[in-house]
């Protein structure tokens, strides 16, 4: 079962159904995050992924895939090692059983982890072993490939692949990992199984490496910028990062966008999301009248100007329908008063300007962002009071609902690990927590009428797909978190 994903993005997604399940899933995904943020090849993959999402830069997607594939095994094996180190250090009594189950997993076979078993069985202090593993994978990934590429390497995915398979083999992390593992086995056979330095590995593995320093990262970004410019790729993100680096220097957990403290960045990078969709999915023809035949409890509208994508959820039956339509047809549709209207958007002012007049009701805005981003984004659209309530999804995830201007509501699903940050903001007066009255489930702000709670409950079901059916008012009340 899919439990988490990391896609060289700035966040790690944990399935909200398993957000409280097994801590090793967090460790696994965060290891990917760490390796991407602290190595030159990781940064390269991250940047290419980010730039490929800019308008007109779709051609970089295939190039990004080559970079992903070149380091796939390195990334996965590092994440698996991190899980094992975590298990060994935190629960040594359960370690053997954990490793036994681990060997039966798909990843173990797919990424030939058996070639790394010797590392895990090293008779070393756990901290030293963890350090050795971090260094091995960092060495595999710390290579400034812009020193060896020509601009033409970036002109197509085929050219980049050819580069890695020929003169650029020394820049190919999975190949480097293979050489490093061979070097380590050789060193251990010769009796040197403690105090193995990076220099030992580099010399025996016959690999090059570039140090993780401000100067090296700046020169790497500048080279990349020049090679990208020659291929007419966008370089704005690279320029901004060079400026940032020259001003601030490099830090541990180098973050391409933010300068907040590392621990908080680490916590906020974990976002619960609906990864294993449990609802039955059906695509509908573009006929808005079909909506009237369905029992839609939540309508999600992806607003792309004149075009709209509708995702319509029947939380009672656990069904989800999709439909492509246009603004006019959606505006003319017969929408039940009980249906929650959720928006994804590029431009909130456009949504408010158009859809608020169409629906004349409360709109919901879902943000799948880090908590800090959510907080700063919503501020201009809220009154100074910023009423809030928190809803517990399970032991690992909770929803934040904040009242905006015009009676609209912003919401996000966050990992429980970030609850303290929200509580700090409530304590500091940034938000004002509402109180629900027990018998009627009314707080006077979010729920003013006796059945208002149902829309919030349906939104939680739609966004998490943890269950379907009609929940009770008591269940809803029981999960509202008190300060």
């Amino acid at each position, binding site marked *: 079962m899919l439990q988490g994903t990391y896609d060289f993005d700035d966040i790690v997604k944990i399935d909200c159904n398993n957000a409280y399940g097994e801590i090793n899933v967090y460790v696994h995904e965060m290891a990917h995050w760490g390796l991407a943020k602290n190595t030159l090849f990781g940064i390269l993959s991250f940047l290419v992924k980010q730039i490929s999402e800019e308008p007109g830069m779709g051609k970089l997607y295939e190039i990004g895939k080559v970079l992903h594939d070149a380091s796939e095994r390195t990334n996965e094996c590092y994440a698996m090692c991190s899980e094992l180190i975590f298990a060994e250090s935190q629960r040594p009594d359960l370690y053997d059983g954990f490793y036994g189950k681990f060997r039966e997993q798909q990843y173990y076979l*797919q990424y030939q982890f058996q070639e790394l078993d010797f590392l895990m069985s090293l008779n070393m202090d756990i901290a030293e072993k963890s350090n050795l593993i971090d260094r091995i994978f960092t060495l595999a990934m710390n290579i400034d490939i812009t020193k060896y590429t020509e601009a033409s390497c970036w002109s197509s995915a085929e050219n980049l692949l050819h580069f890695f398979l020929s003169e650029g083999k020394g820049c190919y992390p*999975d190949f480097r990992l293979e050489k490093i593992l061979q070097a380590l086995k050789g060193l251990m056979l010769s009796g040197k199984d403690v105090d193995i330095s990076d220099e030992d590995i580099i010399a025996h593995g016959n690999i090059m490496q570039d140090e993780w320093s401000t100067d090296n990262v700046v020169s790497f970004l500048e080279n990349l910028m020049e090679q990208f410019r020659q291929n007419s790729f966008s370089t704005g993100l690279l320029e901004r990062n060079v400026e940032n680096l020259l001003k601030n220097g490099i830090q541990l957990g180098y973050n391409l966008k933010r300068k907040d403290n590392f621990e908080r960045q680490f916590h906020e990078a974990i976002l619960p999301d609906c990864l294993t969709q449990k609802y039955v999915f059906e695509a509908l023809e573009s006929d808005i009248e079909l909506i009237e035949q369905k029992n839609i409890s939540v309508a999600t509208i992806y607003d792309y100007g004149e075009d709209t994508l509708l995702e319509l959820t029947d939380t009672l039956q656990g069904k989800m329908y999709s439909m492509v339509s246009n603004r006019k047809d959606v505006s003319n549709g017969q929408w039940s008063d009980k249906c929650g209207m959720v928006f994804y958007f590029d431009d909130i002012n456009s949504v408010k300007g158009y859809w608020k007049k169409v629906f004349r009701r409360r709109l919901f805005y879902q943000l799948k962002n880090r908590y800090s981003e959510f907080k700063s984004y919503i501020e201009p659209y809220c009154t100074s009071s910023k009423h809030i309530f928190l809803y517990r999804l399970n032991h690992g995830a909770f929803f934040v609902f904040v009242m905006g201007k015009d009676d609209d509501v912003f919401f996000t699903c966050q990992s429980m690990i970030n609850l303290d940050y929200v509580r700090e903001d409530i304590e500091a007066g940034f938000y004002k927590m509402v109180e629900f009255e027990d018998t009627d489930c009314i707080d006077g702000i979010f729920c003013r009428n006796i059945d208002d709670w149902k829309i919030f409950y349906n939104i939680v079901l739609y966004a998490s797909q943890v269950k379907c059916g009609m929940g009770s008012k008591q269940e809803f009340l029981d999960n509202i978190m008190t300060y």
Partner: protein
Amino acid sequence: MEKELMAECAIFLEKYNVNVFKLNEWRQVVRNETFSEDAYMEIVDYFAIDVLRQGNSFASSKSDIKITYFLGNELYQFLSSEKNRGKAEILTSSLISTIATDMANMYNMDVFIVTGITNLIVLGIVKMGINAWCRYFEEKYEKEPKK
């Protein structure tokens, strides 16, 4: 048959957007004159897990990692039986389809994906030769050679 199978396998692997380095490695192994079944099956195992995971993340289970063995065993039972032994002509697309459908139903997997994986395994058999492959399978999984 070998060329057709290679083309079908390549289309299948490209459809699932598999790792481009592994795809390149697979092409090299199948084009290499000295074919290594162990090296080949290592790549096929990788592809099998990858495409099954892409195909349905709900259903991924322990049987996923053994599917190449299950399919290989079905093919071995068929190819080494007294009735079929030595008959290269029985290795047809309808046989592949039958075995793949049975296995897909048995383990609740996508038939298209299992057919693709079966094609990959059969390509290995064709490259090696049926008799040589049966001997290889017997030795690897310690099967009693059929008389």
